[in-house]
């Protein structure tokens, strides 16, 4: 009895973990578990979400709009979580267009269907107008929205290159559906826009910002920037003072043509160097006004201004007009 007890005690002693003792046998293999439910991996806190975003971004398998930016993926996962989408589904269903998350039409319909609030959906198209009618649980009035080619024309979509030319019927249907979904199931979509609709807004398709400047540049805009409307071709050599090339040397030698007496430091040439050309005119008229002795001098400056007015930016002409007005007032006051 006593021996047994000792043996037991020894056994117990041997089983106690010894800090410097390597276990004689490898740890038993974990038991293979079966019968678990397949479910999405859902992060439960911000760190987990970010790690997941990082992993997806690093894998290079996130949709193109997210690139390899873990921050964008993180925002996509967050936006999806708010409407009940699992992380990877969220990235597939939510597009970031112009920095705003928006859900693709199919994803939005999936959300609404899984919410259990959609009783039925009817979609028709008569070749010109698409109609989408949705029946919502607990709401007797159906939600009906239409989108016609006339609407598409007004919105500048009809004939636009891309899907509006290739699949107009599908695009009409998506637009009618997106309006019905947004109006009838705002609580499910929680303010998410529909990607197809957002993408059609001017300047949004390629990541532009809708609040920014007009996307397409036109000749009229260039003319506006130039401050003058140039609708006729300009001949550079007609002496209109735009840009004159180097003179033809064989027409007789002038020193400056050969550059030998001209090193760029001559003060008398400064006016020629002024860019733009009108700058010199403005300077000259301003100087004339500051040195005007008589009313005739002021009027002469005014006449000079009228001669070059068309070449000046509006603001400069207005400034000179003000200066002339001030000079006249001052001169009259002095005379009085």
């Amino acid at each position: 009895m006593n021996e047994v007890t000792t043996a037991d005690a020894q056994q117990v002693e041997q089983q106690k973990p010894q800090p410097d003792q390597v276990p004689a046998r490898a740890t038993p293999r974990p038991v293979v578990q079966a019968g678990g439910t397949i479910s999405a991996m859902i992060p439960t806190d911000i760190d987990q979400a970010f790690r997941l975003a990082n992993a997806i971004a690093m894998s290079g398998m996130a949709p193109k709009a997210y690139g390899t930016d873990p921050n964008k993926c993180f925002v996509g996962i967050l936006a999806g979580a708010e409407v009940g989408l699992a992380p990877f589904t969220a990235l597939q269903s939510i597009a970031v267009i112009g920095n705003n998350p928006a859900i693709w039409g199919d994803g939005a319909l999936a959300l609404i269907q899984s919410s259990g609030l959609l009783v039925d959906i009817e979609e028709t198209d008569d070749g010109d107008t698409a109609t989408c009618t949705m029946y919502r649980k607990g709401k007797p009035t159906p939600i009906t929205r239409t989108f016609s080619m006339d609407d598409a024309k007004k919105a500048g979509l009809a004939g636009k290159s891309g899907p509006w030319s290739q699949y107009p019927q599908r695009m009409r249907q998506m637009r009618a559906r997106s309006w019905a979904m947004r109006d009838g199931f705002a609580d499910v979509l929680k303010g998410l826009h529909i990607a197809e609709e957002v993408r059609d807004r001017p300047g949004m398709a390629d990541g532009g910002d809708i609040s920014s400047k007009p996307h397409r540049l036109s000749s009229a805009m260039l003319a506006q920037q130039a401050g003058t409307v140039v609708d006729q071709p300009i001949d550079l050599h007609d002496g209109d003072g735009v840009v004159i090339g180097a003179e033809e040397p064989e027409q007789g030698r002038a020193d400056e043509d050969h550059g030998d007496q001209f090193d760029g430091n001559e003060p008398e040439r400064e006016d020629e160097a002024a860019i733009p050309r009108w700058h010199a005119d403005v300077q000259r008229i301003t100087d004339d006004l500051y040195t005007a002795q008589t009313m005739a001098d002021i009027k002469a400056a005014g006449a000079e201004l009228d001669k070059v007015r068309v070449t000046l930016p509006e603001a400069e002409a207005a400034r000179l007009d003000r200066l002339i007005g001030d000079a006249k007032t001052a001169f009259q006051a002095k005379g009085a």
Partner: protein
Amino acid sequence: MTPIISAPGAYADIPMADYHRAANLLPGPSLSSSGAKTILSQSAFHFWADSPMNPDRPEEDSAPHFAVGKAAHDLLLLGGDWKRAYHVLPEGFAWNKTKAMPEEIAAAEHARAKGKTLIKHDDMQLVERIADRIGANPAARNALVNGIPEMTLAWQDAETGVWLRARPDFLPYSVINGDEIRVVSDLKFMASSHCSPSGFSRALANFGYHQSCAFYADGIKAIYGREPTHWLFIVVEKDDPHSVSLYTLPPADLARGRHQNRKAINLFAECLSRGTEAQHWPAYTAEPEMVGLPAWARKAIDTYGSLQEAALISATEGE
């Protein structure tokens, strides 16, 4: 050495040579758009080698080479200043006509000594033809008036604090004044193959013009508080018939350029923080790296056995 520019801002009077080569242009080494492109397309070491940090930096060719594109570009943008940089040789000029043209030869020698670019009479006619062609396009002309050429912009990167610099060919007053429409134009003289929309699209990728635009945009934003609203390329064909085309850069490609620039600026800042000596600016790889066949070649070999067979089979498959 006192820096030429000591504070962020726009400077109109910095000589081109100083902008490109002066070691004391700014309080510290700086990165330009072309530097950023070198860092990305080649390596930090290549950038270092052609920067003032390299004590043995190769000398720039002192006699400026004549380039029709550059001369026409300058003729349009520099206006009256053009003659300060160029000297046109008279018709029939030859350096050995010492008896017939002694004055002309003396003038040309003097101009060359001043660092001016010499242009032959015939070449000048070509320059004028090209400039005329641009002048005949009202939109192109409008894009190139009412602004300041060759403005030097210097600013510090908000993220890393390093000095950045840019020198847009032409900065319109609309940008400086913060007008509603702010179009920055870039005149490009291109080989005929790069002038069509598809050709220019390839040129954008090959030469990284979108990166330059993004770089300039950041500089303009840092200094004037607002970015340009549009980027316009005025693409002029170098050879006959000198077509002039106007292409704008899509905002998304500007964003791509900005993304690439960020990588370059960060790498520049990282190397600079380690030092200005060559060993701190790594070339392509420091450790042995695996370099294999391109994906298309792998696929061709895996599918057809060899590239030759792939070519023969592809040729018949297309029928």
